[in-house]
């Protein structure tokens, strides 16, 4: 009889007891449930420099890319079995279907799901793990597993428990459907591997098969000869890659990962130390330690109390050893004073942790990694691949003293490269905001290498074989999924920064398609703004912007046409629109090929209409003034019209507020404006004045003291006063009566 050891893929007790079990059996051959084409990774897995967590990633070479990922932590039973074989010089074999078949199956599954996307939810049987959660006293299958199996006292108990667990899960699982077929196919394959192992002359007693607890029952019938089905295949590749506890924790669900890797590592430590409460003590102490690190109080007394509470919680559930849930609840009660929020950060640190795996140099090599390291060398960036962060300033202009074209544009090429990494989401390169405004040729980056960067890089292999291909793929994907126009415009910008002509044309045509649909004025303006940036920067990046110009023109005309109707809004909405108007103005100023006349007409329309948001009308007037499209006389008429007696004071003051949003110095310098304002104020009666005063005060609220002084001087000049005297009066302390009057304004009732 072959010796089966049923496990869960990430299980400290499984890993620990499996070793004891192997020591006891002393097998000649160990067979592990893992794709059999992964056997070539073993030589790298056993190397000293390999530090878990790591993963084996298999991916298809064809589009759409499908992947399977096999993560390993130090407490993976499979990993310990591999190490054991290496240490004891015992033969090792993998028995699962090859990854290319896995990928083919998952491809078929996804396609099937896409075709029949409307599955009746009611008809789906409840997941067997949900059933366990429901039935178990702990209300969660994770806790159930931990309490019953991770805290087993010896390997016999674990092995029997796990096998029984697998048997039961099997009995309650779906008997038909795609997953069941896949399982059947895998088990046929595994049985055939077991059969041929025995046939090769090893006695079954000297074979240990390490497999998921679920499969133990299915593999017991290995002796029966059966015909192998045809295994579908997709061309694929696989590689080892470093992994992190954080990523492990986000892949919850049976087999793929667990949600508290750092905590499970504590259980593993406890098993090795032979201290069955080690994990509980360590967990609570670590929480207290993290709390203190974050500046919160957490005393040893609290840890002791939490420990006692956790133990008595475990007892209520019929256990002796607290589980994660008991511990967390105890920590919340005793250390967090009843609130989980107080300990949540410490909990995340203690349960998930920040551990990142390592692989020896050169082991994890996908084509994109090769490309990345080649480019790093070519662009002389190798010294930045270190864990201390370094700043890099790039001058994108041609270096005229350089001898070759390559070195002349070194910085530009570096910029392209770093932008591609940024698009791929690698945290290696962070763009620091431009320090020098409008210097389109300067770029500052912060470069810092972390193992996490390597992980992202390996994962980018799924997007393309080179950094360039991956970045284009990413941009295309962003464009395809984009719901809003500004997102696409951002993608166009990205494509320019990366210097990817094909991605540019793709994104631009997507933008054109999106622009046909109705979009709001603000979206148009924001999109136009980022396109205008692209065009301004295009020159320095040696990019051809001719494709962008027509679409910018289109957007610009549309924006000009709908600006009038967009200005019908309340004060809350007006802020965003004011920004949009400002953006559009700068677009028009920056791009010479746009028809200025259209913009001026639009501005004049908003400026002169009375039925729009007065603040926005004021802003347009201000822009017209700034661009010298309005004479002093025209302004004077406009001021007196806007501020005439019949107009409600809030509207008048709102207009004035809009007027002051732009170019204040220009306004302050225009004496005629202040004359009109003076006339307006003089025309008001007492009650109206009070009302206007409040609004005007708001309009001038964010003027600086200097600006206010200049305004006062202006008014003084109009009234024929001496500047020094005015200043003296204005800067004197308020007397009681004046104070009272101003305070009285706070109670002013605007509804009258």
């Amino acid at each position, binding site marked *: 009889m072959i010796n089966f050891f049923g496990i869960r893929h990430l299980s400290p007790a499984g890993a620990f007891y499996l070793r004891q079990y192997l020591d006891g059996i002393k097998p000649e051959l160990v067979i592990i449930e893992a794709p059999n084409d992964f056997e070539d990774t073993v030589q790298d897995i056993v190397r000293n420099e390999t530090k878990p967590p790591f993963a084996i990633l298999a991916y298809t070479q064809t589009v759409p890319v499908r992947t399977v990922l096999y993560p390993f932590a130090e407490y993976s039973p499979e990993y310990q079995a591999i190490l054991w074989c290496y240490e004891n010089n015992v033969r090792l074999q993998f028995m699962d279907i090859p990854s290319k078949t896995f990928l083919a199956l998952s491809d078929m599954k996804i396609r099937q799901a896409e075709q029949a996307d409307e599955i009746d939810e009611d008809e789906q049987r409840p997941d067997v793990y949900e059933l366990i959660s429901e039935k178990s006293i702990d209300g969660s299958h994770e806790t159930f597993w931990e309490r019953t199996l991770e805290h087993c006292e010896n390997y016999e108990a674990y092995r029997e428990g796990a096998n029984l667990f697998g048997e039961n899960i099997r009995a309650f699982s779906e008997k038909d459907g795609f997953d069941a077929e896949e399982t059947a196919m895998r088990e046929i394959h595994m049985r055939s591997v077991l059969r041929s192992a025995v046939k090769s002359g090893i006695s079954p007693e000297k074979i240990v098969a390490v497999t998921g607890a679920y499969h133990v029952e299915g593999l017991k019938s290995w002796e029966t000869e059966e015909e192998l089905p045809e295994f579908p295949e997709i061309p694929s590749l696989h590689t080892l890659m470093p992994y992190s506890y954080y990523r492990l924790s986000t892949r919850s669900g049976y087999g793929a990962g667990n949600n508290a890797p750092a905590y499970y590592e504590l259980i593993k430590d406890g098993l090795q130390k032979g201290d069955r409460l080690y994990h509980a003590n360590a967990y609570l102490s670590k929480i207290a330690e993290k709390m203190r690190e974050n500046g919160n109080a957490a005393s040893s007394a609290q840890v002791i*109390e939490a420990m006692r509470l956790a133990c*008595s919680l475990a007892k*209520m559930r019929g256990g002796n050893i607290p589980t994660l849930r008991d511990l967390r609840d105890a920590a919340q009660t005793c250390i967090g004073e009843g609130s989980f929020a107080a300990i949540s950060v410490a909990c995340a640190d203690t349960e998930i942790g920040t551990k990142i795996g390592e692989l020896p140099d050169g082991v994890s090599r996908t084509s994109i990694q090769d490309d990345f390291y080649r480019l790093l060398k070519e662009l002389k960036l190798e010294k930045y691949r270190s864990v201390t962060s370094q700043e890099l300033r790039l001058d994108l202009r041609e270096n005229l003293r350089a001898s070759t074209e390559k070195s002349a544009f070194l910085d530009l090429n570096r910029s392209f490269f770093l932008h591609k990494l940024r698009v791929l989401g690698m945290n290696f390169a962070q763009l620091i905001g431009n320090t020098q405004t409008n210097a389109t040729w300067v770029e500052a980056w912060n470069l810092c290498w972390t193992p996490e960067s390597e992980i992202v890089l390996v994962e980018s292999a799924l997007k393309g074989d080179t950094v360039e291909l991956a970045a284009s793929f990413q941009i295309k994907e962003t464009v395809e999924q984009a719901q809003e126009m500004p997102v696409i415009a951002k993608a166009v910008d990205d494509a320019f920064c990366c210097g990817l002509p094909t991605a540019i044309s793709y994104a631009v045509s997507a933008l054109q398609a999106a622009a046909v649909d109705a979009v709001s004025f603000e979206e148009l303006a924001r999109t136009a703004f980022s396109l205008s940036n692209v065009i301004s920067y295009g020159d320095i990046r040696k990019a051809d912007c001719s494709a962008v110009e027509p679409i910018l023109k289109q957007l610009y005309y549309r924006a000009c046409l709908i600006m009038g109707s967009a200005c019908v809004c309340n004060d809350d909405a007006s802020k965003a629109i004011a920004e949009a108007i400002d953006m559009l103005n700068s677009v028009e100023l920056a791009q010479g090929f746009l028809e200025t006349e259209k913009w001026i007409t639009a501005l004049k329309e908003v400026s002169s209409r009375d039925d729009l948001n007065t603040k926005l009308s004021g802003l347009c007037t201000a822009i017209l003034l700034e661009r010298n499209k309005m004479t002093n006389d025209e302004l004077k008429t406009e001021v007196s019209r806007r501020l005439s007696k019949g107009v409600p004071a809030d509207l008048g003051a709102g207009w004035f507020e809009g007027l002051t949003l732009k170019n204040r110095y220009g306004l302050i310098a225009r004496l005629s404006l202040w004359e009109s304002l003076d006339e307006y104020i003089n025309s008001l009666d007492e009650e109206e004045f009070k009302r206007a005063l409040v609004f005007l005060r708001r309009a001038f609220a964010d003027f600086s003291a200097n600006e206010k002084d200049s305004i006062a001087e202006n008014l003084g000049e109009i009234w024929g006063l001496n500047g020094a005297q005015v200043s003296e009066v204005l800067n004197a302390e308020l007397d009681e009566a004046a104070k009272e009057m101003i305070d009285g304004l706070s109670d002013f009732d605007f509804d009258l």
Partner: protein
Amino acid sequence: MDNSILRLPAEQLFEEELNALIKAEKDPIPEGWRMSPRSVKTYICGGKVGKTVITPKYIGHERLVEIAIATLVTDRALLLIGEPGTAKSWLSEHLTAAINGNSSRVIQGTAGTTEEQIRYSWNYAMLIANGPSEEAMLKSPVFTAMEDGAIARVEEISRCASEVQDTLISLLSEKRISVPELSLEVPAKKGFSIIATANTRDKGVNDMSAALKRRFNIVVLPAPETLEEEMNIVKTRVEQLSENLDLNAALPKDEVIEKICTIFRELRKGETLDKKQKLKTTAGVLSTAEAISLLCNSMALAGSFGNGEISDEDIAAGLQGAVVKDDDKDGVAWKEYLENIMKKRGMAWSGLYNACRELNE
């Protein structure tokens, strides 16, 4: 059971259930307790023992009940914190009823609570006549709890003055009470503990000192998580209460309970249940307990002045009082709720809407 008593203590009201649990006990019983921690949980959260059905006393958040019980198994004191009406006192009463069979060792914390009320005071006539003696001593509930190895309850602890609260520190850490007048030291027997309750709305009135807090395990009782849970609580409690109070009215229908709970939850959270609309919240808490008393009140109205069926008018009267407490703003929030939310909910709500609107005109 004596029917003339307005409100029976829990241990008498649920005597049968308690006896059944004690009889069927299989697990080890902690010293000073009447049943095992597991049976206490069954008593509180409901279940079945032999043929006796145990009614649930606290619905939802079973884990919190477990933590509370597990706390009392260790020698730590338990502090229940929550918004008003989240069943803090209710839970503490039932815990002591199940553990000791006596929920009456209570000190009600008020601004006027003195240190003597927590430790002991004297029968002054006897004190003056005979001098200090044990007979002249008036022992506080905490004192007797220590002597008997039982649990004492301190309600609304945060309403007591800080120095009074701090009296508990030495009691909880030394686990003994000293009477210097008689040179007497009374050590607490095993099983002694304290369950205190505190209100989150009272935060800042008399905040508990860190030293005292440290001696408690703190369990925060939240408002019911889902509408179904809250309806379940309201329904169970209204049934129990109306039995005791002889209200002569039919129990409220499910849709009535649903309406009340919906209104309370929405106003409490400041948004509609489907999260599509923001609302003004009221200054009052609108707790589950208030929903229960509102329905009992409506039943009393229907029983005494109506036809025994709760009508929309009966509920409207109760709602008005519950929602609009003393603040003008509550009135505004309520009116807005009526016009913006309730009015648009269609036929099923129109009766209640009209009844409420009439009261607001």
